[in-house]
């Protein structure tokens, strides 16, 4: 996770890739520098993706310390926040993703308990 290395893409570009890889999970993690929760969220997300979405996911990390204006698009309030851009509809999971069960439900990788 190095801010500046993965330049955040514009909405137009994202839309373009959406078309190209419809079966790819496009995930965006909003962080604020290297706060402990941000670090934890990134680690948890990576582990979770490797386990459940191996080979068909892409994580984009947006550092709001560097680009706070990028929060507006997804209406981010709390950090860290994970946004599932694709597949639609857009889903958000707030927090450090330490609760795996809740995260899986939030990403609709597992049905919610009745």
């Amino acid at each position, binding site marked *: 996770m190095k801010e500046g290395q993965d330049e955040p893409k514009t909405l137009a570009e994202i839309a373009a890739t959406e078309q190209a890889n419809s079966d790819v999970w496009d995930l965006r993690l909003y962080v*604020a520098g290297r706060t402990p929760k941000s670090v934890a969220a990134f680690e948890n997300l990576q582990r979770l993706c490797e386990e459940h979405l191996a080979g068909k996911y892409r994580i984009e990390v947006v550092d709001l310390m560097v680009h706070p*204006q990028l929060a507006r698009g997804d209406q981010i309030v*709390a950090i860290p926040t994970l946004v599932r851009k694709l597949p639609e509809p857009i889903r958000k999971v*707030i927090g450090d993703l330490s609760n795996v069960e809740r995260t899986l439900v939030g990403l609709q990788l597992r049905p919610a308990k009745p």
Partner: protein
Amino acid sequence: MISEQSLDQLQRENQQLRARLEETEDTIRALRAGEVDAVLVGSGCERVFTLETADKPYRLLVDEMPVSAATLTERGEIIHCNRRFASLLQLSQEEVAGRSITSFVAHDCRRLIERMLATGRTRPAECELSLRRADGAPITAYLSIAPRHEGALGECLVVTDLTERRRYEELRRTQEALTVAQARLELAQEAGAIGIFEWNVRTGEVWWSRTAERLYGMPASGFDGSFDAWRRTLHPDDRERTEAEYVRAVEEHRELGTEFRIIRPDGQTRWINAKGTVIVDSAGEPLRLLGVNTDITDQKAAHAERERLFAMERAARAEAERAVQARDKVLAFVAHDLRNPLIGIEMSASTMSSGGTEELRAQCLHMIQRCTGEMRRLIGDLLDVARIEYGRFSILATPLDTRGMLMEVAEAFQPRLAAKGLRLVQEVPASVPPVYVDRGRVMQLLANLLDNALKFTPAGGVIRLGVSSTENFVEIAVTDSGPGLAAADLPYIFERFWKAEPASRAGAGLGLAICKGIVEAHGGEIRAENAPSGGATIRFTLPVARG
């Protein structure tokens, strides 16, 4: 009436609202669960507010507390360490973060730390091991790990540097030992009245202990620390010698050992003993003279007193020995002197008992009378000496004409003088005053002295009788023309049982002792000397009779 289109739209809106609600609920939940550590604030959400700022006081506390602490992942990687922890390892906090704690542990302690990390996952673990600083120096440390608890980022590690603590403890022990040693030294100085000095020969400065100042009779801090100030305390007669001895000790790198006198501010003179040793630098050049002073005045006085007593004792012993020898000698003389007349008596008695002519019997009778007279005189002398000795010698004084007294004695001696061909020359001034004396005793005195002079003067010699007078005393001198007295004998001749050798042995040597007793009983003085002509002179004084 709701159209299908509007129903569709309503459902969509409903769905969106539900999603928004879920999102809001999830945000609140995440905030409550502490899964969030930053929020976006401002109308356009344009400012990020991290909770890092909020926990700054805690962060500061952890960073600055005087305990080395760090958080570890389960694998032992350091997530965060405080400033103290980093400085213990001589690294920055950034350099430490991310590295494994194991990498800071000495090789032989690696298994220990691994076992501890394993235990630390579930329950608190502690152990003492050796850490390695960035420069390779070992640190003996005490490590304790608290297991990660719900919601915590990692395991908590606390490190106590035992090296520092041990060094501190050692320092404290050393300081305690020093204090004790100092106290002991001071006590010893006080008890032994020992003053310590240190003379820096390069700067000329002199350091004195408190006891040294007391030794020199100065108040505390009364010594100004200069060599000259010490020099001035020295007794003028000892100053140059003592200073030279100090300087020589330094120049020749010799042990100092000397004694000298000082004059204290109150004028008291004291004897000081100084011992010292020269301290040299690496090049062998003298740096300091370090030494001790002790007050030996009392020792000196005691030594002198002991010497005096020894001398007195030696003299008394010699005196006693001589007295014993003299008594032994006189006993032999007395026995001999008494036996001579006794033999005469026995022989006369024997001759008379066997008959014989009238003339012979008369001769024998005369002999017996002469012998008994001699024995009576001898026994009388012994008794006189005993009386003088025990202070029971008394006189009965009356005024007596000096000239008449001397004429009478001279007449009495005339036959004996004539028999030996001696001449008695009297030098008596006409103006000589009368004396106040015991007639019998003074006649005995003069007879004794003339008797002696007669014995020591060879045939044809002269005996002089000189008289002079002062206001209170008449002095009479009897001079013979004999061999005189040995100088060594002069002080003893008036002691009882003394007799000049090798004069012809006659009398038990009591005569002069009796003479002295008689003169002193009259309040006069008697002394012996050798006359310029070579003979011996005995002079004595007798009191002048008052109107």
